[in-house]
């Protein structure tokens, strides 16, 4: 479980995240949604500690994040960031094996067991055939899957992903999120696509205007009455076969306010 209370961050003079509370429950997928610039990525970075909030606190399974060593943090939380690492000369297999690092001491080499874990994780994202390729030579979508495999190889109890469906074609968007759902870890996912959020998240936090505009189970948050003022677009909600779908309709000037 990851719990943040009263966290704050500003860029220059503008607070992006202003006194936000978030709780990610074990075994559930929490989606962070909101328009551009609403602070989704910033909030995620506060949750895994590359940004340290000057106020409030973040706890992981009850322990304060700032008290955990970097290695211990990496054993508890695996993160897929939007950094591409495009210049690296590592192969895909070597990239995924980096995920085993937090489990090894400085003098320890990766063992056969580590290689097995890495190979399994590559297979799970449909990238087993890429192992020997140079990471820098992959397409955007392939890279994204490899980075997700590295996060899986960390075998952490929490998984945080910043727009994991970026660069992915429609099939892998669904496969990856399905995979995250099936992991049974505590997952936090920043998502742009509200329909993907509807399908694969349990809970949602809608960010807007520096704070939390709405939070709760998917069904409650994805309410056109809540979403429309935050995104500034007309939204219709359809419930088909027990799945929730949103349709978007640009509105005229009246709703811009």
């Amino acid at each position, binding site marked *: 479980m990851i719990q943040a209370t009263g966290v704050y961050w500003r860029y220059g003079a503008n607070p992006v995240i202003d006194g936000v509370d978030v709780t990610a429950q074990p075994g559930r997928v929490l989606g962070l949604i909101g328009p551009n610039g609403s602070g989704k990525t910033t909030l995620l970075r506060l949750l*895994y*500690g*590359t940004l340290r909030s000057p106020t409030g606190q973040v706890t992981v399974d009850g322990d304060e994040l700032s008290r955990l*060593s*970097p*290695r*211990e*943090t*990496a*054993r508890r*939380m*695996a*993160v897929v*960031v939007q*950094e591409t*690492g495009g*210049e*690296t*000369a*590592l*192969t895909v*297999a*070597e*990239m995924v*094996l*980096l*995920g085993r*690092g*937090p489990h*090894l001491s*400085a*003098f320890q*080499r*990766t063992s*056969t067991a580590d*290689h*097995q874990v*890495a*190979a399994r994780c590559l297979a799970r994202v449909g990238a087993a055939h890429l*192992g*020997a390729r140079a990471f820098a030579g992959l397409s955007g979508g392939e890279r994204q899957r490899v980075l997700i495999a590295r*996060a899986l190889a*960390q075998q952490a109890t929490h998984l945080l992903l910043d727009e994991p469906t970026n660069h992915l074609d429609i099939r892998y968007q669904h496969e990856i999120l399905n995979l995250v759902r099936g992991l049974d870890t505590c997952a936090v996912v920043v998502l742009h696509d509200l329909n993907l959020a509807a399908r694969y998240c349990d809970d949602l936090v809608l960010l807007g205007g520096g704070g939390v505009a709405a939070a709760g189970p998917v069904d409650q948050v994805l309410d056109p009455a809540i979403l429309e003022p935050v995104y500034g677009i007309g939204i219709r909600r359809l419930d088909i076969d027990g799945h929730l779908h949103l349709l978007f309709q640009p509105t005229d000037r009246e709703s811009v306010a």
Partner: protein
Amino acid sequence: MATVVSAGLDEDVLGIGAQRRRTVFWLLALSAVLVVTVLVAVGTGAIGIDPPTVARIIGHQLFGVPSRVSWTPPQEAIVWQVRLPRVLLGVLVGAGLATCGVALQAMVRNVLADPYLLGINSGASSGAAAAILFGAGAGFGQYALSTSAFLGALAASLLVFLIARGGGRVTSIRLLLSGVAVGYALYAATSFLIFASGSAEGARSVMFWLLGSLGLARWDLLLAVAALVIGGTVGYLTMVGRRLDALAVGDETAHTLGVSPDRFRMRLLVVVSLCVGVLVSASGSIGFVGLVVPHLARRIVGAPHVRVVPVAALLGAILLVWADVVARVLLAPQEIPIGIITALLGAPFLLILIHRLHVADT
């Protein structure tokens, strides 16, 4: 069924085992080449001595084997007193430059980074110029030049360190910029010292030192210090290889893999500054080895630093010793500054690298 499972477990699923065997092969092969290089290099000079005799003299001096002397006293003096310390210093400096280059390229994530990026050599040059032209550090006797150079290097590293640290976080771009700034400032200081001294002879000595030379090598404290620091640096950088991999991918990535990028970069900065300071104090600024050898090493064994660091150390050592042989022999009895040779060898390589980068971009 059980056999299938166990066969699956033994299988080298990611080809890592094969890579490791390849690396071990390269390490052994390069070590053998290095030994031969040392023997041939010691034997080469105004008076040629064949490598087997060189090996016998060294064996006799170190272990008393062979005990029967089959060479002349002058031969022994040339091998043991004159050439071996110089060749060993070449080995150390080559290995040190190459590994510091590897570390710096990872620290600032730039393929053009080299050990002199941090301006440390400019500090050492200022110190050396002060010693040569104005007799600074005369109290240190035979170590006046190297001590003065090392103090200059130390001052430069402290400056870079303080400036880079100014914003609280040592990011790669801050490190780059402060290194360049300090480098230029101290380069100006050195030039001013040369100008102010008004001695043409002194200016020539400083110039010779700036271009690098292994001429200071003796069996003395300097060689011992260099061996200790450079050995320690190669060992440390190999040990933190996995963390260098993470840092080389990106700060955010390093953080998520349990490596605090700022703290780690700081620690690397201390280790590398110390090592480069010692290197430059012992041999001046020998260019291109620290820039080119890391790329060669990566080409041979791939990107993971656990493999790149030791391979680069061996390659750097071999390359520098040969460069020194060429510097001694080409215009004998005149000695050419070794930096000229390494630059001549390195520049074409750099052009090839640029060409490849171009191909990769398109």
